[in-house]
């Protein structure tokens, strides 16, 4: 049995409800779809027990009614486990993973600024990556956002060119 | 051996070497053969498939039909990012990347170049 199958087996043994949610796309790439409610325990298990010690990135997605979050976790030998979870758009609250990976701070700030996710346990700091005077409730990576929304409301308000 | 002034020999040798820099605007450099510079358009080869317009990442090229099987190209050199994808996309080799690269102008409008058959094959008229 390959290592990827082994990881899949271990995950299913521990969390039975994941049995049809894990796909092995190619060698070294595993995609898993996990519910938000069980996110913390599954994340803890993969990092602490399954030795996924590298957080390559966190991707945020606009999936229509929900916001999707993909945690790209990697092992030293190159196997990547992509944990996908999603939260409803009206209450997009996720838990911070800075406890496991301090470097995740920047990735989570990106989610907050660009997609409007809410990460309550993220420490207070300068915002990243948008400018300080960026208008509130404008999340550029959401599908319903476009440049005109910004132009009309905020940038052109002071003076006509 | 760790010592200060390790580079002194090469530094002194440089006194008698030809300088590596050149006086650029007075001494021109030759671009490599595959260089992707200003585009050139051959109207007689164009079939008007518009694939170049479709693939252009920066909307720099516009092909217009000006008559029966006659086309002209308007290339905005200010928008062009010189990737030459249009040259690859063109099925009839109607576009070509030249080695010309000194394209700066004081006026943005002068960077719009129109190629058409009336002005000889491949040459340009400035608007």
């Amino acid at each position, binding site marked *: 049995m390959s290592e990827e199958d082994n990881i899949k087996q271990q995950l299913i043994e521990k969390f039975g409800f994941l049995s049809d949610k894990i796909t092995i796309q190619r060698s070294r790439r595993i995609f898993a779809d996990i519910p938000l409610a069980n996110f913390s325990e599954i994340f803890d298990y993969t990092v602490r027990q399954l030795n996924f010690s590298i957080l390559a990135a966190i991707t945020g997605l606009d999936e229509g009614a929900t916001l999707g979050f993909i945690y790209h976790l990697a092992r030293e030998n190159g196997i990547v486990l992509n944990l996908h979870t999603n939260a409803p758009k009206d209450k997009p609250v996720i838990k911070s993973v800075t406890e496991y990976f301090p470097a995740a701070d920047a990735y989570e700030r990106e989610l907050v600024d660009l997609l409007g996710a809410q990460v309550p346990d993220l420490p207070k700091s300068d915002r990243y990556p948008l400018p300080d005077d960026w208008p509130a409730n404008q999340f550029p990576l959401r599908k319903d956002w476009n440049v005109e929304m910004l132009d009309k409301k905020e940038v052109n308000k002071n003076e006509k060119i | 051996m760790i010592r200060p*002034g*390790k580079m002194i020999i090469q*530094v002194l040798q440089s006194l008698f070497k030809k*300088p*590596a820099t050149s*006086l650029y605007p007075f001494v021109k450099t030759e671009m490599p053969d595959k260089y992707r510079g200003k585009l050139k358009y051959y109207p007689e080869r164009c079939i008007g498939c518009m694939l170049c317009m479709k693939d252009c990442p920066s909307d720099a090229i516009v092909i217009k039909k000006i008559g029966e099987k006659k086309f002209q190209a308007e290339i905005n050199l200010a928008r062009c990012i010189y990737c030459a994808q249009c040259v690859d996309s063109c099925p009839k080799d109607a576009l070509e990347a030249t080695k010309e690269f000194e394209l700066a102008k004081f006026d943005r409008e002068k960077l719009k170049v129109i190629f058409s058959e009336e002005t000889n094959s491949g040459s340009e008229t400035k608007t």
Partner: protein
Amino acid sequence: MVNVLFHILIFPGFLFAGGFGLVAEYVDRKLCAKLQNRIGPPWYQPLADLIKLVSKQDMVPEQSDATVFTLMPIIAFTATLTAFFCIPLWQMRALSSFSGDLIVVLYLLTIPTLTFFLGGWYSRSVFSMVGAARSIIQLFAYEIPLFLSILAPAMLAGTLSLSEMTVFYSKHPWLTMLNLIDFAIALVALLGKLEKTPFDIPEAETEIVAGSFTEYSGRLLAFFRIAIDMEMVAGASLLAAVFMPFGLSLGPVFGFILYLVKVLFVVALLSLARTIFARLRIDQMINLCWKYIAPVAFLQLIIDLIVKGIVAQ
């Protein structure tokens, strides 16, 4: 009266010192470029830079002390110019020579550094203030070795007058060979005084932009620039007078050419040092000066003392 004006304005005053300063800057820059395998600037570049600066607007920062800020470049300029009158250039005697003029020259050459400090400090910009603090710290590091390295030959000659020193060494040319270590020390100290790599710590571009000069622009900066150029020539002339006192009786033409060659040789050594070292940190610079250079300078002093005793017998 005309004579005095001639000395102040033309030789060895403003025109000569300033012009030679620009030439020295050109030699420094061109040689540096050559050593780095570049083409380098054309001959008129230092002059063109100066004209550009003079034609620009003077900006005085709002928070700065305007009086100190504008006064300092002029003081730096004047002090270096004055130093020229006391250094023997191509003759045995300097223009104004008296017992103890060596001390005067050394102090006159210290004044520019103090003006860098005051000008930078009263600019009230963080970069200027850090640069100003650094230049005063650096002053304490290189000044002692510089004084010691000049005083040792003076002691050997038994005089504190530069002109009398050159007379002494012309009579005993072999004694100058004794001061070679001091020449090296004086060169290192001069690098520190002129704030050139590896001791360009007070104006380290990548750290504190331009140090004390960050807020200076226009004519004020031009004054500082020409003062630094003149300081380079004055320092090199001082080294030439103290450590290379030969060929001083060759007459005005050859003597003058020999003087130019000597000064440009020192300048060339400075630009060579500029190309082969990395910039040190301020703590490393102080360590270097106090732990290694100052003790060696003392050693040279002791050697000179012993030799003096032997010569006296």
